[in-house]
């Protein structure tokens, strides 16, 4: 059955969006009509499979001085669909006190000093500051450099890109460097490392913004997540706590919906992982790194335009393989709420229709099992479930062979405001840094402060961060931890049942 991606009246495809990168390839549909074809821009002929080639070809053409209307990744086009609520920081006045007061600035520039991205303020306005940054980088010895003042300035050079962070958040240089690395990987996820290297090899002062137009929202979203989401700090993925049976049934549904070259099937709800299913023969034992999952989650969550229907787009998983693309089918299963998202990754650029067919099968099976309403009922953990009075919040990460998953409770009173959430996370970040110091690591930190008491503990089996009221006694804290760990063990059927499920062999 053929699917007309640009079909009018099809609830999954809004008019303008998918049409722009239509997937009319060798599977020609007789219902394609001339007028839609004409209405498309000159790139519409290129299906997503050729998209990659087209983009690189454009890069080459531009180098030769031929003015070709550059078109960047459709992923980024999606990003330009701005919702009215989106506040742009692009036009901020960089000389104002308010600009200086931002907690964390991030800048990306090329080796030649060409600006690529700035979190606050436009790149043009900051060109002189960026020039100074480049001078500093080249002046000081090669390698990564940090300047400490009231702010910390961290420089990171990866290939032809230079990333700079100026932060008053009191994070350590290692943590900030890790965040810059995430920004680098997000850029790679859109362009691949190989093409970036190639582009800059040919033209040192290429303006990468041409290819990244529209990506600011994605990078902004990533930086916001880095600030507010604990799973980045612990380098693990947060899963929605599902009952074993529900997770198993969802995994089975995904397992059965297969097609050649489909390698990953991922189900996400409310920006948290439900399950991942991985093809065994192609990938063998390689796993998806938590960082890759984070980047995927950010891409999907950063823009509401994905909610519009089905998307077929090239995507690079930088930690898995930084030099090549997968082809991702992205679709929300529950419009218009759009909380449950299905992500199918294939290595075959022509496979759109086959993959879309998988989605249909999955949808059907989930409808039969009423999965969507079951998922909607699942709640994140709350500390009150643990039954310990002084405990305010916890984060738990088991050291498990099958995956890197983290569990944490919701941030509730007194950490309800954004400020307080950030403050608590900052405290966790400082403890994480001390415990994992490369030269003098620790096993345990117990910190009594004015507003809370914190305990961080690392053993060979797990890593645990807890927050208590400031008046808790040491004896109470110890009892609370014991109780918490026992409760976690009981809940393990929910928390640790998330294993990577491998596809059955095809006969």
């Amino acid at each position, binding site marked *: 059955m053929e699917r007309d991606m640009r079909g009018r009246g099809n609830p999954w495809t809004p008019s303008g969006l998918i049409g722009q990168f239509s997937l009319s390839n060798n599977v020609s549909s007789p219902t394609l009509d001339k007028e839609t074809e004409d209405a498309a821009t000159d790139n519409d002929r290129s299906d997503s499979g050729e998209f990659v080639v087209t983009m690189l070809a454009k890069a080459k053409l531009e180098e030769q001085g031929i003015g070709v209307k550059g078109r960047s990744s459709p992923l980024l086009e999606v990003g330009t669909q701005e919702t009215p609520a989106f506040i742009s920081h692009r036009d901020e006045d960089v000389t104002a006190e308010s600009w200086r007061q931002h907690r964390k600035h991030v800048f990306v520039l090329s080796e030649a000093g060409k600006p690529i991205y700035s979190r606050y303020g436009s790149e043009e306005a900051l060109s002189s500051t960026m020039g100074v940054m480049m001078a500093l980088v080249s002046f000081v010895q090669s390698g990564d450099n940090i300047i400490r003042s009231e702010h910390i300035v961290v420089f990171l050079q990866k290939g032809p890109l230079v990333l700079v962070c100026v932060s008053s958040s009191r994070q350590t240089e290692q943590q900030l460097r890790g965040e810059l690395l995430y920004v680098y990987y997000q850029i790679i996820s859109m362009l691949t490392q190989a093409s970036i290297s190639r582009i800059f090899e040919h033209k040192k002062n290429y303006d990468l913004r041409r290819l990244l137009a529209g990506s600011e929202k994605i990078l902004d979203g990533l930086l916001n997540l880095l600030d507010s989401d604990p799973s980045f700090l612990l380098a693990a993925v947060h899963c929605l706590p599902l009952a074993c049976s529900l997770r198993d049934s969802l995994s089975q549904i995904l397992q059965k919906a297969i097609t050649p070259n489909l390698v990953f099937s991922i189900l996400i709800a409310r920006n948290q992982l439900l399950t991942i299913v991985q093809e065994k023969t192609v990938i063998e034992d390689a796993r998806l790194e938590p960082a890759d999952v984070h980047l995927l989650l950010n891409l999907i969550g950063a823009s509401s335009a994905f909610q519009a229907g089905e998307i077929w787009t090239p995507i690079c998983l930088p930690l898995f393989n930084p030099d090549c693309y997968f082809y991702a089918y992205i679709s929300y299963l529950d419009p218009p709420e759009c909380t449950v998202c299905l992500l199918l990754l294939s290595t075959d650029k022509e496979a759109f229709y086959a993959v879309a067919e998988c989605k249909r099968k999955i949808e059907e099976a989930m409808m039969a099992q009423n999965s969507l309403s079951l998922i909607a009922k699942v709640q994140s953990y709350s500390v009150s479930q643990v039954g310990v009075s002084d405990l305010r919040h916890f984060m738990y990460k088991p050291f498990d062979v099958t995956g890197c998953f983290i569990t944490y409770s919701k941030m509730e009173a007194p950490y309800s405001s954004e400020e307080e959430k950030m403050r608590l996370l900052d405290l966790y970040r400082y403890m994480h840094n001390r415990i994992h110091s490369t030269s003098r690591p*620790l096993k345990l930190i117990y910190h009594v402060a004015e507003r809370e008491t914190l305990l961080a503990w690392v053993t060979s089996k797990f890593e645990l961060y807890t927050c208590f009221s400031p008046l808790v006694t040491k004896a109470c804290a110890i009892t609370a931890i014991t109780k918490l760990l026992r409760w976690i063990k009981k809940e393990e059927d929910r928390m640790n049942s998330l294993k990577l499920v491998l596809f059955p062999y095809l006969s």
Partner: protein
Amino acid sequence: MTTVILLMASGMQEKQYTPSLLNFFVYNPTFGQKEGEEEKKILFYHPSDVEKNEKIRNVGLCEAIVQFTRTFCPTKPAKSLHTQKNRQFFFEPEDNFWIVMVVRNPMIEKPNKDGKPPTVEYQEEEIIDTVYGAVVKQCYSMYKLFNGTFGRQMEAGGVELLIQKLEKFFYRYLQTLHLQSCDLLDVFGGISFFPLDKMTYLKIQSFVNRVEESLSLIKYTAFLYNDQLIWSGLEQDDMRILYKYLTTSLFPRHSEPELAGRDSPLRPEVAGNLLHYGRFLTGPTNLKDPEAKFRFPKIFVSTEDGYEELHLIVYKVRNSKCDRPSSVELTRDFCEQLDGLVGPQLTLLASDICEQFTVNRRISGPEKEPQFKFIYFNHMNLAEKSTIHMRKTASVCLTSVHPDLMKILGDINCDFARVDEDEEIIVKAMTDYWVVGKKSDQRELYVILNQKNANLIEVNEEVKRLCATQFNNIFFLD
């Protein structure tokens, strides 16, 4: 000077290099702003045999970094620059005068087989910013003690005089820096006090009053026993740096001959006064010789509206020392007068104090293995006490705990500095040592416990016991 320690591990010899001083310079970016005159900005540069252009480049880099950080925070510019191989510290003690110290990171050199050059691993995390930042500030304070502020020098004799003074002071002072043994105590810059009973303390006070009354030239007095302070009339900040000078430079220089023993050729001819055991540590070493020239070092202490220049007279009776900053020219007559007045009285006092010292010793236990390993510091009176540091001499300061534990103390101190409130931090290190840090009001206490199988509650009890014996009148968080 670099210390090289050889570690033998399974047949391969690793060489461990401790942190060392690479550069130290003083500059003012407002001098020589015209093209081609950049060299005028540099007021002092060590090592001096570096090529002129390289000096200009390094100073230029510092200027650029400071400017860059001012973009984000105009009032608090750069404090340090971390690179893989070294660390630079920036300090602006007076408007537009900058002191920069560059320290080479500690590193391990691992030999490679087949004649390949050894791989070098830099240990950036070993250097704690607060510790070495404090060392730079100390360098300035020491300079200021003996020369007054940069501004004052400029007024007195312009840039040329300043350059001269900087060269003279830092050339010698930098040689005394031992960067490999800097730690938390450098951050505190505290003074070790000698606990005395009320009677003896009052005797000393009245003695000091009498001396100051009879000899009007004396402006301030400080009284020390061994290396510990009993009484000081000086401003806290002045006393703190003077104390450091006395205990790390002046006293060790003079105590060595004494320790050398009677028959050693090092022992100088002490034509002593038979009535008492006193002698001058600064000034005339031999009062009997009318021809001998002498001088007292000049120091600058702060007053309400500026600075005053005084002579430092250090007079010693066995282990009691009295130093007296006093103004105006000091003549031989004055010295004899001082000797006659102070000597006998001080001798008597000294024996009283000595008794106290023995009593104290009996209470606190033998020094060899103190019951608790702790460091205590009070920000208000600068009192510091450490049972971890032993035998502080000019060249080395031994600690009885592993350097990594000292660095953990440094980390906890940094954490305390983040907020003003009272806090407590307990950590368990990988080696199963427990380190407890308590901050209460303006006091900090750090305790190291070697109790591998203890849990948090037991550790807490141990520390409470320590506080009960040594700090029973101070409230620490529980």
